């Protein structure tokens, strides 16, 4: 796949939540361009509108104004068929791995359902072979997950399984909404590595949403810094992190605990 192909873009995307008393502008005239094969980070503190933007890209919320264009066409999700078609191309990885699986289903069934979604008829052992491959991809042994319910797995395992699920569907775009915030620091690196491997080997675009600018710096090709619904700074990670121009970005970098120097508290 050509690296420079434009995959998803947004023009003046705005979302306003309102009731009689209050009007909250969650996302305020945002423009973006995601190219295929990139890892893009969206960084900002809680309440800056990161998740709202992610939900709009996923089609779970519709924008108040502006439009999101996926491969030259505005996204349209009126009918069930169109939604399924779109979600084959765009897949999420959510923040909380403990609630992203169906707790009544064994996890390998969840994975084989994804294969069913693609409308390919496979024999049972072929199906399991495919699942096994996906598990190996994210460094999980198949017998670790075979015949198990979600509660029997750890958060890190479940989050990696989520990536394996995405790998089976092979979407064009993955929206990872704070995929590491519920995971402890020790398995965080394995999730990030799995995401980077997914991009390297399948050419999937990954939108990585986080509040920790350190993770964004480690993982991404491009960083958007979001504040109160607007992008205040965007650019390559080396420019944004090592030479920030906006006060807000400097502030975000200063708040991340570092090991070069201690905070003066």
């Amino acid at each position: 796949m050509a690296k420079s192909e434009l995959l998803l873009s947004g023009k003046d995307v705005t979302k306003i939540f309102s009731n009689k008393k209050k009007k909250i502008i969650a996302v305020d005239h945002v423009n973006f361009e995601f190219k295929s094969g990139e890892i893009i980070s969206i960084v900002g503190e809680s309440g800056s509108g990161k998740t709202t933007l992610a939900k709009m890209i996923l089609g779970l919320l519709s924008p108040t104004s502006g439009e999101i264009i996926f491969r030259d066409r505005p996204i349209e999700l009126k009918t069930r068929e169109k939604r399924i078609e779109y979600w084959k191309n765009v897949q999420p990885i959510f923040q909380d791995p403990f609630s992203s699986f169906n707790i009544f289903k064994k996890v390998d069934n969840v994975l084989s359902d994804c294969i069913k979604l693609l409308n390919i008829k496979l024999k049972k052992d072929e199906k399991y072979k495919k699942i096994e491959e996906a598990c190996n991809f994210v460094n999980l042994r198949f017998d670790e997950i075979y015949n198990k319910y979600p509660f029997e797995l750890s958060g890190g395992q479940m989050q990696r399984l989520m990536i394996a699920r995405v790998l089976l569907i092979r979407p064009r775009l993955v929206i990872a909404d704070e995929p590491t915030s519920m995971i402890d620091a020790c398995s965080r690196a394995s999730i990030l590595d799995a995401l980077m491997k997914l991009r390297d080997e399948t050419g999937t675009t990954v939108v990585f949403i986080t509040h920790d600018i350190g993770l964004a710096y480690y993982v991404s090709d491009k960083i958007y810094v979001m504040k109160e619904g607007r992008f205040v700074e965007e650019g390559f990670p080396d420019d944004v992190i090592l030479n920030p121009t906006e006060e807000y970005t400097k502030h975000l970098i200063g708040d991340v605990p570092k090991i070069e120097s201690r905070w003066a508290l």
Partner: protein
Amino acid sequence: MAEKLLEVKNLKSVYKTRFNERITAVDDVSFDLEDGKCLGIAGESGCGKSTLAMSIMGYYYPPLFYESGSVCIGGVDIIKMSYNQLREKILGKEIAYIPQAAMNALNPTQRIINLIEDVMKEHVSGITKNEIKKIAEERFETLNLPKDVLQKYPIELSGGMKQRTVIAISTILNPKILIADEPTSALDVTSQKIVIKLLKDLIKRGFIKAMVFITHELPLLYNIADDIMVMYAGEIVESGEADEVIFDPIHPYSNGLMNSIIVPEKGIKGKKLTVIPGAPPNLKYKLEGCRFSDRCLYAKDECKISKVNMKYVNNSRSYRCVLRVDELKEMYENGKKRATT
């Protein structure tokens, strides 16, 4: 030498499940906490950090049971105390706890001031509502928290504000020791820094004398703790001063942890992070030998046979591994060389 506020010796706690399994979540843990210090406990999820926090407070409720060892607060063994004694004399006054999920720790039907009234009335006899209000307002002012929070309901507060309120409530009786169990894991980095500043302020102003800070986030621990203990599968595998443990880890597990740190500093981008392979052992089985041996890159046959005891490098530094410090250091150097070539 500073006064020892808390002494934990060979503490062992077990969970008994309904399938008659015994899970030893805290196994043979010993440490001291001195006046004015902040002790950090690091480790991955499920290694027994929170169970240790519960055990230190004598909070033994089924399925958690006490097995052996002692916890002395100010020279008194709290394990032998009855529930009422513990509640009257120790909890809140000597030792206080900040829970992990501050979001759900506040009663949603009560104003903040009512929650503070509950705490004060329970522990200080004959105190009036006006006195409580005065104390609470003063405390909020010194901690730079807005006073109008007192009249609000928890739902009106943001996550960071809720956590700060929980901290203010749990330290209102000036406990000597504060146990903070992942107080910032649900917050974003900006609120995290504000909460950490508040905790440091509490020590500086003398409202609390010492703190135990539990987290899995090592850069954060480095910024707040004076000493660090690394826990693995219920055991302490390494302890020492923060600088030493972070920059010069001895145990293979701590070394693995330090290599997975991600910070926004030059050199992180493109750096290959090492991930410790595998998962921790299931504690319901009787474990022989070193618990880390299955995942350890440097494990030998002898590691799997006999129990490993803590070795002391000096007074403050100790680790749990059969190998000598220089042997381990050499292996790490070789590992680094191999990674670069």
